[in-house]
């Protein structure tokens, strides 16, 4: 159907294996000139692998790449870039200590042995003027916001005047405003005749920016569709492989006794951080209390104070009838407090260690896994295998390294480890941030199930829709205080938003 002239790129039968994993299995993809082609798939569907093959980072085990009508083989990203294919990586791959100009020169040929900083700065200014993306070449990259760092990464690619630009989940680190301006820039790029491959797992983004979309699942192409002729529900089904519940069925709340009681809690604030001030709240058994608020208004401090990770200056914390205000974290954990911290990769798992290590965390002390401080390997092995199966953590073996798991699988693993300890209180901070629809649905369902089992859940989330969908009551946190408390059933989004912004707080507005 496609006019051969229009097809910039054709990938045929691409296969790429890693030890224990088939990341791409006979993938076909074609990208036309002047289109935004979305690659949609769950975490781990093989999107990034496919694009890494395309930009010369990986060599495919099988398959061919036809670029502008000629078969090509890239030995390195530099070769791919020379032929006009550039990739903006999810983690940017910038050197934090270097300036913008220095980063832009990385991997480029210089004339002679010396590095002409002034020329580099001129180059940055030229490119940034060409594309209307202003930036100061002399600023060290580490001083830039995530959005600006991404701009540097994009300029770096654009400086090579590519015909095809690959964006790997570019919006995951951006604010909504930054994402909108990124989309604007992408539209102007395709308007000037360039093609874009856009890796994402977010359905709205596909619908708003992509011309066509190729859906990947488990390393295979499921379908390629015109965006105009599809809808989010169909895409979600193709991506996950079954119907996805966009709204979660929730049984009425049947709260029992207070599981967590916080009275007049005040904590010290780290420099530049918000401290909790005279904060009181209560979570009952079988209830989800949502904490709304603009991030950085004391959410982490609240979770850490309850979990025993942050010293309490005054006030009290009661968990299950015990005054745990000044207890050590280990003791609070053993009392039955599960804590799923914000930023799981950074705060909850050991990426360089195996799944066994990660799964037994918190249960690594005492019976039944480690009576007298010595591991019972058979018991541990059984425990780990059972949890991985029960919570459907997809991994070749318990010896697999955690960094090889996708975000959704890692979150499942953390959920498995926390819920398996039969907690009476679960603290969950942004438990679905960065997860695809399938994994998000799973995590939310699990939290509701825990609630229905009579456990108390403190759900801290930056996602208001998530709070409204899961919580029974919602408390609004602002500048370390609770500024409002509403029942989720009759919560008004706008009212909560105003409270988050500090409209009801008598003092200064929130950060």
């Amino acid at each position, binding site marked *: 159907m496609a006019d051969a002239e229009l097809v910039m790129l054709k990938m045929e039968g691409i296969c*790429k294996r*890693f*030890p*224990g*994993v*088939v*990341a791409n*299995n006979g993938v076909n993809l074609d990208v036309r000139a002047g289109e935004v082609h979305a690659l949609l798939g769950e*975490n*781990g*569907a*093989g*999107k*990034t*692998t496919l694009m*890494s093959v395309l930009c010369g980072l*990986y060599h495919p085990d099988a398959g061919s790449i036809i670029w502008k009508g000629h078969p090509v083989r890239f030995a390195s990203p530099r070769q791919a870039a020379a032929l006009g294919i550039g990739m903006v990586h999810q983690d940017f791959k910038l050197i934090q200590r270097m300036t913008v100009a220095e980063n832009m020169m990385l991997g480029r040929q210089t004339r002679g042995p010396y590095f002409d900083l002034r020329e580099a700065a001129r180059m940055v200014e030229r490119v940034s003027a060409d594309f209307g993306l202003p930036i100061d070449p002399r600023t060290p990259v580490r001083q830039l916001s995530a959005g600006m760092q991404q701009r540097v990464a994009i300029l770096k690619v654009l400086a090579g005047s590519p015909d095809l630009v690959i964006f790997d989940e570019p919006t995951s680190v951006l604010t909504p405003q930054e994402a909108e301006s990124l989309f604007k820039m992408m539209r102007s790029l395709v308007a000037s005749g360039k093609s874009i491959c856009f890796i994402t797992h977010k359905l709205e983004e596909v619908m708003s920016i992509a011309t066509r979309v190729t859906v990947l699942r*488990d*390393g295979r192409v499921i379908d390629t569709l015109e965006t105009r002729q599809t809808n989010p529900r169909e895409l979600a089904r193709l991506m996950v492989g079954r119907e996805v519940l966009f709204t979660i069925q929730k049984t009425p709340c049947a709260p029992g006794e207070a599981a967590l009681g916080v009275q007049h809690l005040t904590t010290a604030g780290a420099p530049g951080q918000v401290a909790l001030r005279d904060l009181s709240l209560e979570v009952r058994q079988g209830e989800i209390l949502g904490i709304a608020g603009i991030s950085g208004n004391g959410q982490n401090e609240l979770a850490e104070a309850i*979990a*025993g*990770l942050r010293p309490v200056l005054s006030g009290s914390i009661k968990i299950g009838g015990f005054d745990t205000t000044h207890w*050590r*974290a*280990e003791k*609070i*954990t053993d009392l039955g407090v599960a*804590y799923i*911290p914000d930023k799981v990769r*950074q*705060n*909850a*798992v*050991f*990426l*360089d*260690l195996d799944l066994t*290590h990660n799964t*037994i*965390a*918190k249960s*690594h002390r*005492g019976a039944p896994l*480690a009576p007298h*401080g*010595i*591991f019972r390997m058979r018991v541990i092995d059984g425990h780990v295998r059972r949890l991985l*199966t029960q919570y459907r953590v*997809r*991994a*070749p*073996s318990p*010896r697999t*390294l955690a*960094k*090889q*798991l*996708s*975000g959704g*699988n890692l979150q499942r693993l953390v959920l498995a480890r926390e819920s398996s300890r039969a907690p009476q209180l679960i603290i969950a901070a942004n438990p679905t941030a960065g997860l695809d629809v399938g994994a998000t649905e799973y995590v939310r369902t699990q939290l509701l199930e825990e609630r229905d089992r009579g456990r108390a859940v403190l759900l801290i989330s930056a996602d208001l829709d998530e709070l409204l969908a899961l919580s029974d009551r919602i408390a609004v946190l602002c500048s370390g205080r609770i500024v409002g408390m509403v029942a989720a059933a009759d919560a008004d989004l706008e009212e909560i938003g105003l409270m988050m912004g500090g409209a009801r707080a008598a003092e200064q507005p929130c950060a």
Partner: protein
Amino acid sequence: MTDPESGQVPAEPAARAQDPSWVHAHHVADAVLRALGSLGMALSAIVAAIVVAGGIIALLGINPIEAFRAFFVGSLGSKNGIAEVLVRATPLALAGLGVTVAFRAGVWNIGAEGQIFLGALGAALVGIYAPPLPQPLHLLLVLAGGFAGGALWGGLAGFLKARFDANEIIITIMLNYLGILLVSFLVTGPLKDSSGLIPQPQTVPLPASAILPKLIPATRAHTGALLALLVAFLVWFLLKRTTLGYTLRSAGANPDAARHIGINVKRAVIIAMLISGGLAGLAGANEVSGVQHYLTQDISSGYGYLSIAVALFGGLEPLGVILASLFFGMVLVGSESMQRAVSVPVYMVYIIEGLIIVSMLLRQLAWRRSK
């Protein structure tokens, strides 16, 4: 290397993961491949180093074939040669195991040398000044003294890091000088053998009850080698089979996550440095009680520094550390033999060490590239 996308597992292997026999076979094959890979890598690095070293020796006007003959005959060609290799490998292994514990806990202990000197001092004090005791008890106390001396020096660095967030690399390097100079001061002054018979600065000899028994008769090989094997097992057991080892490895792998699962990371740093220093201290005790039989100001000739290379070469695995220590012991003994036989300067040993490390790194780099 692998990004989260590609590392993720599609449905098929996940289904197979339910089948334990498959997992087992897969796991064993994987482990064998990995072991063969790293062994091959080490061997090719060594071969490359030997070729370059041979070139340098030839430039010195010495026949490299003869030099290498002397190298291997001297180190592996006789009972005495093998005994000497064991004598050199033992302190390297003990200190290397100490370094392993610290590095696994994420603490960069560069201070094994100083910890060896403090361990030697502790062992010598217990050996010389303890009341007459039966040999097993006296030996045990000597070793405990060595451990305590090293643990003091290591623990001090750990405490400074935990309490004041001091950089442990700088602290441990500084403590090396302090430890070496402290022993130097003591053996030239307060602890010097005052019999007047010995001109060198050293303490009086240890009584027979404080001396490690011989391993191979009529050589210098002593039972410290068995101690090193035992310690290797204990370190493996500590790291892989105990709650304490779990906390140390967690703190080393990701301090943020360790804190969130309730581990006191500062405490872990101090414990790791106590153990690490203690094991280096055992190397010092081993030198005093097994080799020299008195304390001198050159009780360790750089074993502490070399033990860092030993630990890294051994892949921070106890068994690997033992093998690496034997290899480096052989390099030390062989180089001295080359010097005696064909007068290759003894500095050649540093060149060979450096060459092996560099070629190993290059090999690793090439291997990663090819993936």
